[in-house]
């Protein structure tokens, strides 16, 4: 409990119900406790943390260790004309290049880590975009109800029936290709825009069941305006399922992104993502299979871990859904 000393100092006039501290000890702590019992989820969490940390600091460490960026631009300007320690893609793995090098002689580990930055960024930011759209639409539909709800949710149904991959491809083909960064931003928006539908449904369902609870009636009875009821009273209460679904949306968006990048519609050079690295690698698969295997395996492990973590979070945050 947050303030054990103060709440124990004065015995309340009536004894607290025996189960109050159990449901109480804050949802967060309770969830963490349950999450820690789930080995797969802990494993997923650890792996995700390692991948994120490696993507963030890895390229920097490599630069420091070798004196060159991953594509052999020396960090020391006086060395610009020096001969870089070029390593042909000969499959000779070494401590210098634990994942080997690609056909331009670049270290694949460094490329994978940099690609991880982009892939994770796409996953997180697109999910965030989908969260904002989904929560806004879902909470509005659920709270207002009636005809507005009907109209919004039928709209969502219509959007569901459109093959979203096609929408994304058309969007990217139409507006993309101007600059690498522009393409990336477009990717965030496009992926976010197609993955908010389920989020909206989840939030709407939550809001509808919360709406009939007494504390919402109490808030209305104290004259709290509708917008504030939605933002301060309803949305925070939907966070459990929303966090769970968001954790599961990140890997699915990352998968979409690599799929698009693999097709050449996603991230563009000089930026790289796991998908575009795999696309590069597949051209040399017969000779240098590790060029595909290394980014592919990294992505697979990360996605698995994210899914384990998401499942674990669902079990932890939503005890009713647990079996037995």
């Amino acid at each position, binding site marked *: 409990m947050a303030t054990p000393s103060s*709440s124990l100092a004065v015995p309340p006039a009536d004894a607290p119900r025996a189960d*109050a501290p159990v449901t109480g000890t804050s949802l967060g702590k309770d969830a963490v406790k349950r999450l820690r019992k789930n080995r797969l989820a802990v494993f997923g969490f650890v792996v995700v943390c390692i991948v994120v940390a490696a993507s963030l600091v890895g390229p920097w460490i490599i630069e420091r260790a070798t004196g060159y960026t991953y594509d052999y631009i020396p960090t020391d300007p006086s060395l610009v004309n020096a001969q870089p320690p070029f390593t042909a893609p000969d499959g000779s793995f070494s401590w210098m290049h634990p994942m080997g090098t690609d056909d331009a002689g670049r270290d694949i580990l460094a490329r994978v880590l940099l690609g991880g930055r982009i892939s994770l960024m796409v996953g997180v930011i697109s999910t965030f975009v989908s969260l904002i759209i989904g929560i806004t639409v879902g909470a509005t539909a659920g709270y207002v109800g009636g005809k507005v709800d009907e109209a919004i949710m039928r709209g969502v149904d219509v959007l569901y029936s459109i093959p979203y991959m096609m929408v994304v491809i058309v969007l990217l083909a139409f507006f993309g290709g101007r600059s690498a960064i522009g393409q990336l931003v477009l990717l965030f928006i496009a992926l976010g825009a197609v993955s908010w539908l389920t989020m909206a449904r989840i939030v709407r369902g939550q809001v509808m069941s919360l709406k009939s609870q007494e504390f919402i*009636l109490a808030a209305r*009875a104290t*004259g709290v305006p509708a917008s504030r009821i939605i933002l301060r009273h309803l949305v925070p209460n939907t966070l459990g399922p929303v966090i769970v679904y968001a954790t599961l949306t990140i890997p699915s968006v990352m998968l979409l992104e690599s799929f698009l990048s693999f097709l050449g519609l996603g991230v563009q050079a000089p930026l790289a993502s796991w998908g575009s690295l795999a696309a590069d690698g597949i051209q040399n698969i017969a000779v240098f299979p590790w060029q595909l295997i290394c980014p592919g395996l990294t992505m697979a492990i990360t996605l698995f871990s994210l899914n384990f973590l998401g499942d674990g979070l669902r079990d932890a945050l939503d005890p009713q859904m647990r079996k037995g």
Partner: protein
Amino acid sequence: MAPLLSVRELRTWFAEDALTAKAVDGVSFDLARGETLGIVGESGSGKSVTTLSIMRLIPQPPGRIVSGEIVFDGQDLRALPAEAMRRIRGKRIAMIFQDPMTSLNPFMRVSQQLMEVTRLHLGLSKAEAYEHAVQMLETVGIPDARNRVDGYPHEFSGGMRQRVMIAMALSCKPELLIADEPTTALDVTIQAQILELITNLKRDTGTSVILITHDLGVVAGMTDRIMVMYAGRVFETAPTAELFARPSNPYTVGLLASVPDPTDDAHAELYQIPGLPPDVARLPPGCPFAPRCARAERICREQSPPLIQLTPQHQSLCHFAQELYDAAGTPTAATGDEGAR
């Protein structure tokens, strides 16, 4: 002086597939400033719907206030724009609900919830609202209020939460407090504390109170008048003492007989009104209570009972109201038959 609240012929109906549930069907009453009115009745008798109609918090659809007037301090609340109504809620009319366990937002600190009201209606600054929240918690008797104000609702017990609800309701010094079964979900000892708290606060602030309950014991001690509801109608209204002394409606008589008497040594079986409350979507013609009424005669099943004015303060909705009134007044006399009309 004009009453603070005057409800006239209020009808709130709910559309239920093809049927219409007349949850409130022609309710009229007045409430003077500083007065406490108890509304008593079984579940589904329209007590809560009446008060929610006053607050304009009936879920629409399916609910709808079909007709009637709700005049609060000279304003017809039904005609008010939604925004103006919102400003009255919580500021001039406040409400306490039945279940304190679910009436507080589990994700918000108690201080935030208390501050929300005063910042909204009184325009207090954050610091002022915080001080106000602490004061209100002290007023409602929460020990160590300053330390507990930042706690979450789950750190409070049921009785404490109901105190918080009361603090919230009284934050803006409302003119009318509607307490919808404020003690039903609480232990008996806590019930007494909460009722005493409401009584004291009411005495200090002069607030009018509407107290909804299905427990006659609760209303007996603290109301000025009691209104008995059944099937969406007012069956009897009388000053508290008179209602207990001279109940003039068979339903009221039945309710009073159903209260356990602890001094009864014979352990006689507790009286209960036979049958179940009617479905307000499928009311029989005539008096809605007739199928369960021992006193019922043919006229009860055929004609709606009239509202009989027994004294200026005492009304009863029954064909035999006068007869019952007279009989109750002279307990030794044989059952009079002259009063029936």
